[in-house]
């Protein structure tokens, strides 16, 4: 019922789209006494790639987990296409077209590649063969290893599988948590390429990355999270040029 509609990419790509697909308003999230998000506001326009940057423990993962319903906010709102979705459990949220590729890949190790992909389509009555074909087209490596147990895949292959699995749910909004972590340079490039392709095909992307340079090179806009608050935001290209960003996240001239 909530089939994703392919949208053309906003040609301008710089400003938030007219219709923000995702909106966070004053979001506060805490683990027990520790407040990990201290009231953040963030929007992702339809068709955009937005990069969320920040140091370790800044709260990036927490943000994504809150959006996909694994954590519930202490206060604040999460809106998807204008509707409040905070408080909805993650397994229900899947129906709203949110795909989440978690930190550290987390494939189902004792299922084959194909079974993992089928799990991605769990929310549908049956697995859409065409979509499966598209994913295999996007990741020919996975097609080769259809029957291999995914626990024995290499890190990069697992990352591809995790993304492919999320795509099987035909998400409108794809949340990616550090997709380049622990991957070989070549694979990192491939992954970024693929993200670009997915986005071009109409999926909106919220990308969390440590690898700031590449993330910003890819994204339309960016946010920087520092200890639970948004420290900076703006068009990606401008952020790339910002000297503070460059000092802190591109490793230039520091120390």
């Amino acid at each position, binding site marked *: 019922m*909530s089939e994703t509609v392919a949208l053309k990419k906003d040609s301008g790509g710089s400003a938030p789209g007219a219709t923000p697909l995702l909106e966070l308003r004053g979001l506060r999230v805490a683990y027990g006494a520790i407040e990990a998000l201290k009231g953040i506001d963030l929007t992702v326009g339809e068709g955009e790639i937005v990069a969320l940057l920040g140091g370790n423990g800044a709260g990036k993962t927490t943000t994504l987990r809150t959006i996909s319903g694994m954590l519930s906010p202490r206060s604040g709102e999460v809106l*998807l296409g204008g509707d409040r979705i905070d408080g909805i459990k993650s397994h229900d949220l899947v129906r*709203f077209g949110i795909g989440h590729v978690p930190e550290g890949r987390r494939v189902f190790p004792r299922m084959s590649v194909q079974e993992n992909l089928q799990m991605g389509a769990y929310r549908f009555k049956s697995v859409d063969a065409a979509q499966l074909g598209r994913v295999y087209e996007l990741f020919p490596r996975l097609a080769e290893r259809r029957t291999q147990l995914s626990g024995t895949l290499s890190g990069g292959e697992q990352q591809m599988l995790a993304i492919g699995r999320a795509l099987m749910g035909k998400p409108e909004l794809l949340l990616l948590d550090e997709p380049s972590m622990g991957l070989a340079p070549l694979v990192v490039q491939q992954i970024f390429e693929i993200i670009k392709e997915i986005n071009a095909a109409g999926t909106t992307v919220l990308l969390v990355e440590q690898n700031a340079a590449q993330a910003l090179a890819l994204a339309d806009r960016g946010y920087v999270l520092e200890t639970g608050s948004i420290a900076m935001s703006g068009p990606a290209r401008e952020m790339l040029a910002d000297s503070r960003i460059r000092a802190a996240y591109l490793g230039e001239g520091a120390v």
Partner: protein
Amino acid sequence: MSTQTSSARSEAAARLRKVNWYQQPMVKRLFGMLVLALVVNAMTGEQGSSSDLFLSLKDGFPSTRMWIILAIAIAIWATREFAAEPVKSGSRSVRDLVTQAPAVVTVRERLQRDKWTRWGVLALVVVLALVIPGQLTGYWQTVLVDQIAIFVLLAIGLNVVIGWAGLLDLGFFAFFAVGAYSAAYWTGSLPVEPPIELNNFLVIPVAMVTCLIAGVLLGAPTLRLRGDYLAIVTLGFHEIVYIVAKNADNFTGGPQGVPQIPPFKAFGYEFPVDPMPYWYLLVALVVIIVFAFSRLEHSRVGRAWTAIREDEVAAAANGVDTIRFKLLAFAIGASSSGVAGVVYASKVGYFNPENFAILNSILVLAYVLFGGMGSIPGVLVGTAFLVWLPEILRDKVPPSDRYMYLGALLVVMMIFRPQGLWPSKRRQRELKQAEEGIGDADAMSEPAGGRI
């Protein structure tokens, strides 16, 4: 196009976000209380009968008792829902009055700071432990010696294995049996003659060594197994020891058991039937063992155990000889269990394989966890309490229902206070971290997947 889908989405979102009346926590809690009331009603009802299976159900549902219990349940629920604040603040102020009173605070601080105060308190506890039981009736003295003290000794040993080294041992009681049979053997009470008959006191070290060896023999082939597997293998070991005790009639005397084991004798003094001398002996043993073990806990050995418990691979990679330390834990635990076996055998004078039924291993484990795994005071208090409880219940509830209450208590305790009565600091931290999703609080195995 997208307007249509988005309106469908709005509806779905609104529906999913809506909390129906029956989903309200308050209502759920009411429901829970009602179910609980019915369970309590079943627990406290008439003893059923195998010739009329419906007797107890017919009698209890419905009955006046049922209505009363339901009313109480609803009253408790209502107090919690509607008058929680006054009650809580009341109890808080009482607690503050007690815990924050200047006198209490200074005492606590002195306890924390001053080593000598601590020693003083400990000495006082020991003195009380020596004096008070003298005032009890014979029955309770017997319970204290035959059960509480013996189980305490066992629990301290098992605590080393599971609380410190994190090895899930479901067959611990088997070592107790080994100790008891050693005592029987070396005092010449078994069908087979020992090479020389020993004084019971001398049997203690012999039994310790025997159990130590048994511990190592059991441990060596099984310690490479993952936690859960270790559990079932040790359970199997216990079963095997039990069955051998029962069936190797020519050696163990079989199910008829071992009669007439002589009591302790020293310098012409023979321990009488009276439990008190045994009590002093056991207190001495407990004090010595507690003293030695707590030194161990805060030494490199204790730290190595913790390391193994938390991450065996990392421990080995940092030079910790994991097998050796695990065996050490097994052996130490087993030998203290063996001591308990000797004292028990000498005290009661008669035992048979049923004394070592498999349920006991599970019980000791429950005692350790109830008290607070890894914490010596916790284990002492928890075991004493749980052994005492069924005894006191004997007169309060139908005797055969006692273990029903024990089981219920364990479940409630694990849900509301999983760290145990008196947890160790380390263990509490582990639990807290486990709750936050960092690491695994027991070495039962590598986490095979995510947490649920």
